[in-house]
């Protein structure tokens, strides 16, 4: 059993979207549907500015609000902490989309919900997720939080600052943002974890 997690070092991320394109191609997302997207936010006034490049996707919440609301029971959490769904049983009711506080789920044109599944097929082969592998700034790490020597554990430990999105909701995100550029942490992120 593992506790898979991802960390993105915002000090290095340039918001180039290589991860997003890689995700779409790997997972055969039709044009217009995305599991992973980039939010580029500027705050401040000329010339005192901060730009945050923040890739977002499913956070594989410890307490995922999206799972219990699914009427067909097709949403589930694996033993390794991957929040996943069986699209063959999805009726497209969007209840899970409504419940996700991070807009991480979207409707595939074929009529089922799609979202990041941590590239479970690659992880099963011992490879990194598509987004992690391609990222040209090497700002993404993926691995098992239970293993203190995993890349992701080390990256989180060594970060100057660790944030998650909307920690106040108690969802227990497993997508960590390291070294947010703004002094107060993530832009609009409601405070930090440490």
């Amino acid at each position, binding site marked *: 059993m593992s506790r898979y997690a991802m960390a993105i*070092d915002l*000090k*290095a991320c*340039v*918001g*180039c*979207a*290589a991860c*997003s*394109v*890689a995700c*779409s*191609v*790997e*997972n*055969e997302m*039709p*044009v*217009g*549907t995305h599991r992973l997207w980039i939010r580029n936010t*500027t705050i*401040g*006034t*000329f*010339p005192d*500015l*901060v*730009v945050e*490049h923040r890739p977002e996707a499913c956070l594989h919440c410890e307490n995922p609000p999206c799972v219990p609301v699914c009427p067909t029971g097709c949403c589930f959490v694996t033993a390794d902490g991957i929040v996943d769904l069986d699209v*063959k049983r999805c009726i497209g009711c969007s209840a899970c989309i409504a419940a996700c506080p991070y807009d991480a789920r979207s409707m595939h*044109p074929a009529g089922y919900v799609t979202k990041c599944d941590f590239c479970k*097929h*690659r992880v099963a082969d011992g490879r990194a997720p*598509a987004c992690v*592998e*391609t*990222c*040209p*700034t*090497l*700002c993404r790490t993926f691995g098992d939080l239970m293993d203190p020597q995993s890349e992701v554990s080390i990256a989180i430990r060594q970060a100057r600052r660790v944030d998650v999105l909307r920690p106040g909701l108690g969802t227990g995100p497993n997508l960590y943002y390291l070294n947010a*550029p703004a002094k107060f942490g993530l832009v609009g992120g409601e405070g930090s974890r440490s």
Partner: protein
Amino acid sequence: MKLQRREFIKLSCATVGAMTLGSGAMAQIFPDGFPNPFRAPKGKWFDRDVTTVYSYCENCFWKCGIKAFVEGGKVRKIDGYAENPKSRGMLCPRGQGAIAQTYDPDRLKRPLIRVEGSERGDGHYREASWDEALDYIADKMLAIKAEHGSESVAFFAHGSGDNWFAEHLPGAWGSPNAAKPSVSLCTAPRETASQYTFGRGIAGHEQIDWDETDYIVLIGHHIGEDTHNTQLQQFAQALTRGAELVVVDPRFSTAASKAKDWLPIKPGTDTALLLAWIHVLIEEDLYDAAYVEAYTLGFDELTAHVAEFTPEWAEAITEIPADTIRRIAREMAAHAPRAVIPVNRHAVWYGESDTHRMRSLYLVNVLLGNYGVEGGYYLCDAPIVEKFPHPELPLTPSAGGCGGGATDVVADSPFRDSVDRGRFFGSATAVQEMIEPMITGEPYPIKGLICFGVNLFHAVPMVERTKEALGHLDLYVAIDVMPMEHVMWADVILPEATYLERHDDLSLIAHKTPFITARFPAIEPMYDTKPGWWIARELGIKLGLAEYFPWEDMEEYLDRRLSSIGSSLEAMREQGTIVRRGRPYLKDWEALNRNPFGTPSGKIEIYSERFAEAGLDGLPVYLPQPDGPAEHYRLLYGRSPVHTFSRTHNNPVLMDMHGENEVWLNAREADRLDLRQHEYVWLENQDGVREGPVRVLVTERIRPDCVYMVHGFGHKAPRMRVANGRGASDTHLQTHYDLDPVSGGAGTNNNFVRLLKGAPNPNHPPIAQVANEKRSPA
């Protein structure tokens, strides 16, 4: 929302109607046929049988080593691989999204000949066989040769096949008028400056020792938006490692957002800043005296030259406080030699001042003692692989390339010099200087143009002049993959197979660890398309030049070349890349008793005798740039991380990320002009040329005296159904350029625009909608 409504109404009407009619209902509800619940779902590509093919990427000219994953006869995914020093296992967004080019239903599919009697630009074509198309071209070329000489056919080429179309074929044919846009529209000033300072070029892979440096100063150079893969990787790794970053840019670029200092310099004044840094380094005795003593000539002249270029002098010009200028100079010196000002690639900004700027940039680095030293610039050469033996070409064109090193046309050759010879000091040919002779016939007429992978209407300034010039030609051939606007002006259009469908010549990269990469086709060419090498050879044979193409196919050619280094085609197929050891530092050369500096003096020539002899400045000077007319903003331009020049705008995967460009405008200026975020405007330049509509990006991230656009949008090519009409073209607004009399570079930053309210919202449908429409073969 609206669309969904409309669709819903359609759908529900259809459904209800079908229900009442009884029959046909299922077809409406299940457009893909009635689903069979017992049929096993298809599964994903990666669960099926996947084969891997080595190649290198062609979505820009960086040539990252890739693995193409093929399943069911289709390329499904592309990744980098760790053993390749360019990709190192990673790819930029463009490399990841490049498959969509191969499967673009709008791509060129078979040879086309312009319908007799139609005008260039009308777009009337008929399909032709390769034989007919190549015969047509050969006949016209031979006719031009008979009447005007072989030099009257010009060759513009860019991309992996440019060795055939800017070097081999023109050399065999006998035309010195062969050029690559990556020289005079890109690197020319930095290459000429580097050649004359160090006796070495910069080469296509900028030799910055990112892994060792502690302090980085970027002048323009918007890494992060400029997503040259390896450079971005190493830049980011340097930041992660804790290297400090200073960015000098009128715009708060992505790189600036990573910097500890952003210097929002007044555009066009960088040389003043660099000279002031030289002043401080010398005056405060912060330079590396031992290095200067050992490796350079002309330091005393420099000392005298910069005496008056104080930070206060520079402050008045650059609008950067003198204190800041001093502080950064001291910080650089404190980190030297592990402090570096990397050269940017796109060095053509202001014409004459560009070589001065690049020279002063190098001189700061020299004073920091970092050239050939850890943490600065490393030294590199391309690996040597013998040519396939063939008779010597009658002529060696000096197309140059990102790699720099352009050779002069042999002085006593029977051929006339290139048409641009004498217009500037440098030796490489300049694309934009070959256009005027097409119109004027001076110094002699250019009557034919073979254009391979160069976007004539997006890459070259003064588009209207280019169009006029095309009208004077006897022959204009476009070899391309997409029905770009300029392609649809050609007499003959030859569709090249895309990079996933073809072999190309070896890619030999000058790098810290020099390396060789090969391209293998992942799939057969789709439609009736052919690889560039095949087109060059077939045309060569038809031109009577068969002796220069003594190979049957690329497999034979590559195998022969690889055998000269003890490898083979088969070995390469399994391996993809061969990496060599380099000699990156001065000490490595000294250990071998060799001198890396190819200057006449064998030293770094701070003062350039050769420039002085040619009547140029021996030391760099600051040249003020003109201000624009009232109410005009200087038009700056750059890259989107998800696009390459003008070539990726019909790629729905990449367009889905960034589907139209914006004109960046300072927020206070927007207020003054009463412009709102994302409002559409017209851009009108100093010559009254109008472009747009384009959205305004109201932002704090730019100075108030300039605007900024991402280059490459604004296609006017109806057959490119995703790209057509989205965003605006910076090139169309570049009705003026400043020729650098030293390098031949065309500086385009002295164009100015006004923003005019009241442009209509073009209401572009979402990219997904256009992409999913069944685009029938054109």
